C-alpha cells in the first residue's frame, strides 16, 4: 500500500491511498500520489507498507473525556467508517473505558477493552498491547486524540493498527518542542492571515463575511459575531486580542483583520475591565493614522474611563457606542450604506 502522509483526515477518499502489487507499480503509484493535493495540502511524503489482507475493520481511540476529566478509550467493532455516525446511531457498539489519570493505564484494562468488543485469547492480548502502546504515545506526546481507524483483523487473525491519527494538545508545545515547528508550518486548512495571527499570539479565525471584528475576550467576540448574524450581517472573522488589550496587540489585530480584502466595515468591541478606555481610544487613533485606515469603523468602548475614551474618539469623528446591540446594528447599517 502507498499512503500519502498528510496532516488532514480523509486522505483515502481523496485518492491518497493506493495499492500496488510490484515494486515498479509502487514506484509508479507513489509518483502520482507525491505532488497531488489532499484537502489543500501538497503531498511531500508517502509511506509504503505491506498490504494487509483485511477480514474485519475495527476501531480504537483514546480521547480527552471533558466530563469525566480523564482519558477514555473507545473501541468498536464498527471500524473504517465515521465513528461519530456509529456513536449517534448505535452507541451500544462502542465500548468505553475511563483511565485513572494518576495511576495510568494498566495491562488488564487493555484486556478489558478487547473483551468489551468480543475478542479472546491471542487476539485479546494483541489488542491490549496495541491499546497500551497508544496510551503510551498519548501520555508521552501530550496528545488530545489518538485514533486507529481501521484497526484491522487480518485474514490470518492478526490484529494490526493499520492507520493512526494523532492530535497534539497546543497547550503542551512548551514541553513538546519536537512538534513546535510542525505546528507553525503545517496547517493546511489555515489561511495565510490565520498563520500570521498565530505567530503573533492572536486568536483569529476567518469566516468569509465582510464585517471585520475585533474584541477582547473569546466569549465577548463570539457574542459579537452572533449579534452581527442577528442583524443580518456577515462577520468576516473572529479576532480576540485577549484580556490586557494594549496598543501593540490592537495594532497587530488591526493589521491582520484589515489584511482581509473582503472587510468593508470594522467593528471593535472592547469591554475594558481593568484596561482603561482612554488608553484604548488613543491607541486606536494612533494606529489609524499610522496605518492610514480608510474604511468606516464602529467602536464600542465601555469600562474604566469610558467617558474620556468616547470623547477622544468623538473628537476624531469616530462614532463610539455604549451597547453591543447598537454597535452591531450600526456596523451592519454602515455596510448597507456603502453597498
Amino acid at each position, binding site marked *: 500500500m502507498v499512503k500519502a502522509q498528510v496532516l488532514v483526515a480523509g486522505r483515502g477518499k481523496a485518492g491518497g491511498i493506493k495499492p500496488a502489487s510490484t515494486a515498479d507499480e509502487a514506484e509508479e503509484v507513489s509518483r502520482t500520489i507525491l505532488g497531488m493535493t489532499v484537502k489543500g495540502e501538497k503531498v511531500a511524503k508517502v509511506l509504503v507498507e505491506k498490504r494487509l489482507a483485511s477480514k474485519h475493520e475495527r476501531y480504537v481511540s483514546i480521547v480527552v473525556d471533558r466530563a469525566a476529566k480523564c482519558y477514555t478509550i473507545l473501541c468498536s467493532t464498527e471500524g473504517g467508517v465515521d465513528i461519530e455516525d456509529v456513536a449517534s446511531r448505535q452507541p451500544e457498539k462502542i465500548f468505553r473505558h475511563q483511565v485513572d489519570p494518576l495511576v495510568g493505564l494498566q495491562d488488564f484494562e487493555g484486556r478489558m477493552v478487547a473483551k468489551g468488543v468480543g475478542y479472546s485469547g491471542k487476539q485479546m492480548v494483541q489488542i491490549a498491547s496495541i491499546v497500551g502502546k497508544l496510551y503510551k504515545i498519548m501520555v508521552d506526546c501530550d496528545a488530545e486524540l489518538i485514533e486507529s481507524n481501521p484497526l484491522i483483523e487480518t485474514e490470518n487473525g492478526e490484529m494490526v493498527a493499520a492507520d493512526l491519527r494523532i492530535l497534539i494538545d497546543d497547550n*503542551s508545545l512548551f514541553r513538546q518542542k519536537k512538534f513546535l515547528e510542525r505546528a507553525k508550518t503545517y496547517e493546511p486548512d489555515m489561511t495565510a492571515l490565520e498563520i500570521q495571527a498565530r505567530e503573533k499570539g492572536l486568536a483569529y479565525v476567518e469566516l468569509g463575511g465582510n464585517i471585520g471584528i475585533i474584541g477582547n475576550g473569546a*466569549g465577548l467576540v463570539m*457574542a459579537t459575531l452572533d449579534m452581527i448574524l442577528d442583524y443580518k450581517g456577515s462577520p468576516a472573522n*473572529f479576532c480576540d486580542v485577549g484580556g490586557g488589550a494594549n496598543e501593540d496587540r490592537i495594532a497587530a489585530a488591526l493589521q491582520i483583520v484589515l489584511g482581509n480584502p473582503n472587510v468593508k466595515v470594522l467593528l471593535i468591541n472592547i469591554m475594558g*475591565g481593568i484596561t482603561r478606555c482612554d488608553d484604548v481610544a488613543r491607541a486606536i487613533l494612533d494606529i489609524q493614522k499610522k496605518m492610514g485606515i480608510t474604511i468606516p469603523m464602529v467602536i464600542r468602548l465601555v469600562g474604566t474611563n469610558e467617558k474620556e475614551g468616547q470623547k477622544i474618539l468623538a473628537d476624531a469623528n469616530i462614532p463610539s457606542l455604549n451597547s453591543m446591540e447598537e454597535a452591531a446594528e450600526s456596523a451592519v447599517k454602515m455596510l448597507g450604506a456603502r453597498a
Partner: protein
Amino acid sequence: MPILVGRNTKAIVWGITGSQGTFHTQLMLEYGTKIVAGVTPGRGGQEVHGVPVFDTAQEALSKVKANAAIIFVPAPYAKDATLEAITADLNPVVVITEGIPVKDEMQIMEIAKQRQTTVIGPNTPGIITPDQCKLGIMPGHIFKPGKVGLVSRSGTLTYEIAASLTKNGLGQTTCLGVGGDPVVGLSFVDVLQMFKKDTSTKAIAMIGEIGGNAEETAAEYVKKTKYPKPIVAYIAGRAAPPGKRMGHAGAIITGKAGTAETKIESLRSAGVKIAMKPGDIAKQIKRR
C-alpha cells in the same frame, strides 16, 4: 450566604512576585479581599504590597491563617503550584493561568476530587462575592450585591452581563467563571447545586458557549431535579464554524457535537429561559 467565597475568605497568592500576580494582588487588596500571604519559591522573606512572601505553603501556613488560594503562575509551573495549594488544604483554589496542558489539568482534578477541594478554573477570571471578596481578575466596580447568581465559561462576556445586571438593579450574590479549558474543576451542575442551597440567590444567569456538553448536562440536571429557581441562559457561538477553536481551548465544535443550537435546544426543553442577546438576561430575570 453567598457561595464559595465571602467575608471570611483568607487567600494565599501563588505567583505574587510575577507581574500579573503583583498587579492583581493590589487590585484584590483594594477591593477588600483578605490576601494574607504569597508563595514564590526562592523569594521567601520579601513583601508585595505589604503581603509577606514565603518559599512554601507549609511555611506560609505556619505564620498566617488561610483558607483559599489563587494561582497566577505561568502554565509550565501551574500544576506544581496548584497541587501545592490543594495539598495544603486550601479550598477553594482559583487557577487564573491560561494554557495549562490538558494532561496536567486531568491530574490536578483527580487529586482535587480525592481531597474534596473545589478548583475554580483553570483559564478563569475567578470568583467574586460583591463587597465581600474578589478572588480573580475581574473589574470590581461593575459588581453590586444582589440576588442573581452568575456562572460562566467566559471572561469579558461575564463582565458584560454582570454590568447589565447591576445597571438593572438586580446585582449579584456570587459570580464565577468555571474556566474556558476543556477540563475544568467545576461543571455548571456543580455550581447550580451550590446556588440551589444558597438562600440569598433568587435567580441564576448561566453563560455558556460552544464545545463540550456541559450545557446539555446542566439541562438534564435542571429537568430531572425540577430545579426550583429560575435560570436564564445565554450561549455564545452561533456563528462559529465547526472544527475551529474560537479563542478558548474548549470552544470548538467537533463534528456535529457542541453546537450552540443543540445547547440552546436542550436548555429550552428543560425549562431554562434563553436570552438571544447578552443584554436580555437582565430583562428576562426582571420579568419573573
